[in-house]
Structure formats: C-alpha cells, structure tokens
C-alpha cells in the first residue's frame, strides 16, 4: 500500500469495491474490468483487487448472491442452492429446454463462427430457418452482417447471453472439436469394409 495509514476504516479499495458492487447490480449484462474501471474512474489493477474481495464475499455457499466470471466479464447471479426458489419465481425460465435441432444449430454457430442459414442447413442436412429464428428469439444468436457484404445471406453469431446461459467465460471454453467424435478412422474402416464387399 502506498497510501498513508488511516485510523478510520475507509479502506479505499473497500470503497472501490462498493462502487463495483453498485455497478454490477445495475448492469443488465456482465461487465469487464475495463468497463468497470472506466465507470468507477479508477485503475484496472485496483478494480481487479476489488473484484477479488467481492468474489470472496459473494461466493457460493456464503451468499445468496454470487459473483461469477462469465461471458468475458463479471456478473451477479443467484446461488445454486436457491435454484428451486428461482424456478418458482420464473414460471417460464428463459434458459430451459432447447430442441436437438436448436442445439445442433447453436453448436455450428458457436464453433464455426458467423455463418449463414444455408451454411447451417448444409451441415445439418435440413433447413435451419425455424431453429435459427427460435435461437434469435431467445437471444442466443444474433445477426452479424451478411455473407460477402452485399446481397449475401445474413450471418449469425452467438451472443454474450449464450455464454451466460451456458456458463462459459468465453467461447474458448468450448471443448476442442478435435476431441469430439474424432472417430474418422473407425468410419474409414467401416467404409473400406463395405467397399470391399461391393461387386466391382
């Protein structure tokens, strides 16, 4: 600490922590350190320290309000132990129940980055219109310009809400595609086996 000691306990970081708390409770989406520092008019490093203090105070098991790192920023959420009460509060919870089609579409958009409905349809083998419309309506994906700037199909990307709903700090937390279903060898063997049985 490079500041003079004070007898009266108004620890400046405590005060900054209260400001950060206040910002987090009024924000409608996660705030990153830069945003918090700009609004609090303070140093990012000190904001990080304040966030450390708050994360300790608002931690699972200790508080009904939990501070979490999500979607590239920090946000308050309800403690998991209060999940039943929250479910009763929201009769139709936002993040429940995505169909298989919606999940596949979401996976494609999340992994391939901005892509169009035809892109998605080509991979899934069926038209993606209703799945895409449903995901847009839920705010999990959003428009991100058009393919080839002019005249192309609209492209979609995942939103920060997607990361929040899935509890991801960022898209980089998605498992690597290479680690998923990477059984190309097995498939290849089966194809070769079939090919050999086929009369020439």
């Amino acid at each position, binding site marked *: 600490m490079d500041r003079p000691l004070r007898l009266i306990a108004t620890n400046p970081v405590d005060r900054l922590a209260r400001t950060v708390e206040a910002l987090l*409770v*009024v*924000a*409608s989406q996660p705030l990153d350190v830069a945003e918090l520092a700009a609004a609090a008019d303070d140093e990012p490093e000190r904001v990080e320290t304040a966030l450390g203090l708050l994360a300790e105070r608002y931690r699972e098991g200790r508080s009904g309000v939990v501070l979490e790192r999500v979607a590239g920023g920090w*946000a*308050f*959420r*309800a403690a*998991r132990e209060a*999940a039943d009460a929250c*479910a009763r509060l*929201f009769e139709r*919870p*936002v*993040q*429940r129940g*995505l169909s*298989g*089609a919606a*999940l*596949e579409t*979401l*996976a*494609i958009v*999340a*992994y391939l980055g901005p892509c169009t409905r035809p892109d998605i*349809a*080509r*991979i*899934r*083998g*069926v*038209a993606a219109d*209703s799945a895409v419309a449903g995901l847009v309506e839920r*705010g999990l994906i959003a428009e991100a310009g*058009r393919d080839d*700037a*002019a*005249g*192309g199909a609209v492209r979609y990307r995942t939103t920060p*809400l997607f990361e*929040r*709903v*899935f*509890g991801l700090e960022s898209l980089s937390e*998605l*498992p690597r*595609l*290479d680690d*998923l*279903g*990477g*059984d*190309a060898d097995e*498939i*290849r063997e089966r*194809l*070769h086996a079939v*090919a050999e049985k086929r*009369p020439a």
Partner: protein
Amino acid sequence: MVVRELELDLDAFEGPFDLLLTLVLKEELDLAEVDVAGVVLAFVERLTHRDELDLDACGEFLVLVSALLELKARGLFPDEDAELADLEPEEAAEELARRLAAYRRMKEAATWLAERLEAERDRFFRVGPAPLAPRAEPRLAPQEPAQLAAALRALAVEPPPVSLRHMALRFPPVAQFLERFRAILRRRRRFDFDVEVGALSRVEQAVAFLALLELRKADEITIAQAAPFAPIRVASGEERSSGDERRAEWTVHSA
C-alpha cells in the same frame, strides 16, 4: 401391398412410411436422424412374409427410399465443390469418412452443449436491467445518410446464381431415359438393358434403371432376367398410357 402404409418403428420415428415422408418433406423431422437402413429392413421383413414378390411395391419402395437417401446424402455431404463422382474409390472413401467425422463432431458438440445446459440448470441470473437501475439512454453519434443508400443498394444486388451443375451431373432426369426406352421400343419389341446402358456412367445407369422400374410400374414393359446378374431383357408390354402424370411427379421428387 401398399408401401406408403408400411409401419415403421425407428428411434427417431414410429408410424407409417407415408407420414415419415410427409414429415421429412415438411422438414418437421430431421432426415439426418432417420435410420434409412431401418426403413429398408422393415420393408424387406414385410416382403418375406409374402409368397409372391410384389414388383409394383418393390419399384415404388426403391423410388421412395432412393429419394430419401439422396436427400439425406445431400444433407450430410454438403460440400458442392468436391465432386465425389470425380474421385477414385479410395479417395471417395477418404472424403466420405472425413465428412462423416466432421458431421459427427458437430453432433457431439451439440451433445456437449445439452449436457452443459443440464448442468447449469440451477444457475439463475437476471436478464434485463435491475428494477431500480437508471434507464440507459441509447445515444448514437451523427450518421451519414449515404450509409442508408448503400444499405438499400446492397439489398438490390442480385445474389450469384446457385450452381446446379453438380446436380445435373449426378442426377440426369429420369424422363430422359423414359423417352429413350420408349423410342427404342417403338423401333423394336425388345432390347437388352445392359447393352443399352453399358457405355454410361454408373450414376446414369442407376437413373436408367429407375426409369426401367417406372415403365414396368406403368405396365409399359415387361422385364425378364434369367438369373441374378444375368442380362436384363426388356420387352414392350401392353399399351397403356397412364404413366405420364406419375412420371412428372417423380421427376420433381428426384430433382
């Protein structure tokens, strides 16, 4: 035997074949989820319960199931630039394996997301602003009207035409072969299928065979084959002209 009433019991679908087709065409059922081999098995099982081979049913089934497979294959192997037909068999197998693996990975990714969602079931957060938060006034810097003109002009740009080249290559119209076989049969009463199509590509041969089944279904021809893999002999059958409408219908399905 009515193919469309064939009862199916698959993972993704339970009910008559007809309903399956309807759901698939209306895109209410993901064809990628449908085990087409299961459909074929169900049909073959039904056939074995009968003493006589129902050629009409077989023909119809072949047409429907191949349309289904074509749709499914086109969905699973969407890369229109890579022409599987131009590849050597080994290369084609490699390419197929690569694409199947890619598709499977995406399905795995969806499964991972589903599990993640399930695990996050008890995580609740506020989506809107806090009840007593100040109202955010969205403010916008001054904008150039030229942007609006540019946006509208961009919407008036004709999209590049969709290439249908690969489809023409892979799937010549059945009607073409219907006409060709009818023309042959006007000149002579019978012909040898293998001789007529021997010079064609494998895909063209397949379509020609479908045309043959179609003619048989319309009773325009009779088909004879002495033994499996023996030459297929085709002769003109009783003259009937009911095939026209149906031909048009299925050409649409196959395109």
